[in-house]
C-alpha cells in the first residue's frame, strides 16, 4: 500500500501540471525510487529522505500557485508515510485488524487536516512585523528543542559513574 501511494504522488503531481513532457519531470521520480528502495531492500533510513522529498514536491507545487495540488500531494505523502510504518508490523490475523484500524485513523486524520488547511485558505489574516519575528523565534526554539531531544536519544549526554574500556597506557 505504501509503495502504491508513493508512486501515485509523482503521478498526481505530473497530471496536476497538465502532463508536461519536459525531461526535468523525471527528477520527481527520485522520491518514489528512494521510497521503494527503503521498503523493498529493507533500508528504512531512505524512507525519511523519500518523505522529505514528497513534502518538497508539495511545497514546490504551492509556490507555483497550485495550493490544492500541493495539499493533495501532502495528504497522499502522509498516508504513504503512515502505511510504511504500520505495514511492517509482523503478519498475523490480529495484525490485519490493527493495520485496518491504523489505516482508517490515518485517512481520517489526514483528511481532516487537509480540510482544515483548505478552510484556513479562505481566512484573510494580516500578520504584522513583530508577530512575524515572534513566530520565527518560536519556530527556531522548537527546532532547537527537537535537536536537543534527538541528541539525548542517541546518548549524547552522560551522567553518573561510568567506566570506559580502553587500553591501559
Amino acid at each position, binding site marked *: 500500500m505504501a509503495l502504491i501511494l508513493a508512486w501515485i504522488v509523482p503521478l498526481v503531481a505530473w497530471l496536476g501540471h497538465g502532463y508536461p513532457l519536459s525531461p526535468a519531470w523525471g527528477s520527481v521520480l527520485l522520491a518514489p525510487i528512494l521510497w521503494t528502495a527503503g521498503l523493498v531492500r529493507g533500508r528504512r533510513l531512505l524512507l*525519511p529522505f523519500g*518523505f*522529505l522529498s514528497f*513534502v518538497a514536491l*508539495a*511545497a514546490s507545487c*504551492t*509556490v507555483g500557485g497550485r*495550493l490544492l495540488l*500541493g*495539499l493533495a500531494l*501532502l*495528504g497522499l505523502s*502522509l498516508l504513504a*508515510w*503512515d502505511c510504511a*510504518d*504500520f505495514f511492517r*508490523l*509482523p503478519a*498475523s490475523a*490480529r*495484525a490485519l*485488524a*490493527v493495520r485496518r*484500524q*491504523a489505516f482508517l*485513523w*490515518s485517512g481520517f*486524520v*489526514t483528511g*481532516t*487536516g*487537509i480540510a*482544515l*488547511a483548505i478552510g*484556513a*485558505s479562505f481566512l484573510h489574516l494580516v*500578520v504584522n512585523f513583530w508577530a*512575524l519575528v515572534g*513566530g*520565527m523565534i518560536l*519556530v*527556531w526554539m*522548537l*527546532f532547537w528543542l*527537537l535537536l536537543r*531531544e*534527538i541528541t539525548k536519544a542517541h546518548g549524547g549526554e552522560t551522567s553518573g559513574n561510568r567506566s570506559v574500556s580502553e587500553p591501559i597506557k
Partner: protein
Amino acid sequence: MISRKARLEFLALLILAGLGLAFRHPGFLLLSIPLVWHFTLGLSLMPRNPRESLLVQREVWPRRISEGERVQVTVEVKNIGKQKVSLFVRDGPYPRFPVSEGTSWALGTLKPGESLTIAYKSQPLRGLHRLHAVAAEVRDPLGLALEELEFPCLQEVLVLPRYENLSRLELAARRTLPMPGTARARRGGIGLEFFGVREYRPGDEGRRLAWKAYARRGEPVVVEYEQERAADVAVILDVRARAYRGAPPELFDHAVRAAAALAHYHLRQGHRVGLLKYGAVLAWLFPGYGRRHGEKILRELAQAELGESEVFAELAHLPTRLLPTGSLLLFVSPLLFGDEETLGKLVARGYRVLVVLPDPASLTFGRLEKTWEAEVARQVLTLERWALLRRTQRSGVAVVVWDVRRPLAGLVRKLRVATHIWR
C-alpha cells in the same frame, strides 16, 4: 517516547512554517496545517499511563522437566484501564529456550476489559531458565509515540540433564563405610558372594554351618559371605572451558549427562555420593544418600556451565581434602595434557579413579566431509589422544573413552579393572 517518525514529521513542519514566515508565503503555512494536525492528533491518541492500564500474567507448566520435554508458556495481557490500547507484546527471546510451537509475540488493540493471550511451547535446553519480564510496546495508531514497557513476571524453569540408567559398574572404592551398600568390603560377614569359611563361634547362626567341611575337619565351621557396604563416591565434572575448546558445544552436555548417570547409579547402589564441579569456581556438593540428594545433584548438574579460572586451570589444584582417601573418584572430562600426572598422584594417594572421557572426535568428525585432510587430522588427533590415554592408564587410572553417539551403559558394564582403555 516520541518516535523517529514523529521527530521527522516535526522537522518537516518546522521547515515549512519557517519558510512561510521567512518569505511571508501563506502557501507554506497552509501546507504546515495538515502536518500540525497529524502530529498533534497522533500524539493525543497515545493512551495515558499504559503501565497502569495493563495487567500481565504468565503461566509456565511444568516448571521442572528433563531435557527433551516441552514446556507450555501462556502469557495473558489484560486491559484494566479505561482507554483503548494498541500494543505489541513479546515474551523473550531467552537463550537456550527456543520456541518450538506457536509464537512468543502478539499484536493487538485491546478495548477496556479485553485481553490478549500468547501461548507457545518450548523445548528448552539443560539449565535453570529465568524468564524475566514480558515486554510490551504501546503505540498510538499512527506510530508517532511509543512506550516500551516491561512487566516483571519472574519464573524459573529447571531443565534437568537426561541421563542413562547404568545397570552395572563394578569398579569399587578402596575403602568402605560402616553402612550397608553394594561395594565389596573384602571382609567376611553378611552378603551374597562367598568369602570363605571359619571356625564356629558362639552366636553364629546354625544355618550357616558348613556341614561337609564339619564332617571333614571334625570341628564346626561356618560359611562367610563378603560384606557389602556403602562407599564414598565423588563425581567430578570438568567445567574448564579450555578442556572443551574446539569441540562442539553439545559435548559438555554429554559430559553432564554422563556425570548424572554415574551419580544416579551410585546413589541407587546405596553409596554416599558427592559432586564437584571443577574449573570455573569450586562448586562442591557434600556427599549424601538417597533420592533427595539425587535431586540436589541433578539441580547442580542442570546449572553446570563452562568457565575459566586461572586458579583451577590445572587439575593439580583439585581439593583432595574434600575427598576421603580410598573413595572412588569418577572424573568426567575430555582431559587436557598434564591432567594424567595429577590423576596418577590421586591413585598413588589411595583413590580409585575412573575417567569417563566424552570423545570430542566422535562428534566433530561425524559431521565433517570425508576428505583426505579431515582423515589426516583425525588420525593425528587420535594418536595424540591415545598417547595421553596410555600415560593416564599406566598410572592406574581406569579410562572409558565414550563415543557420545552410543550408550554409556554398554561401556561401563564391561569395566572391571584399570588395565585397559575401554572404547
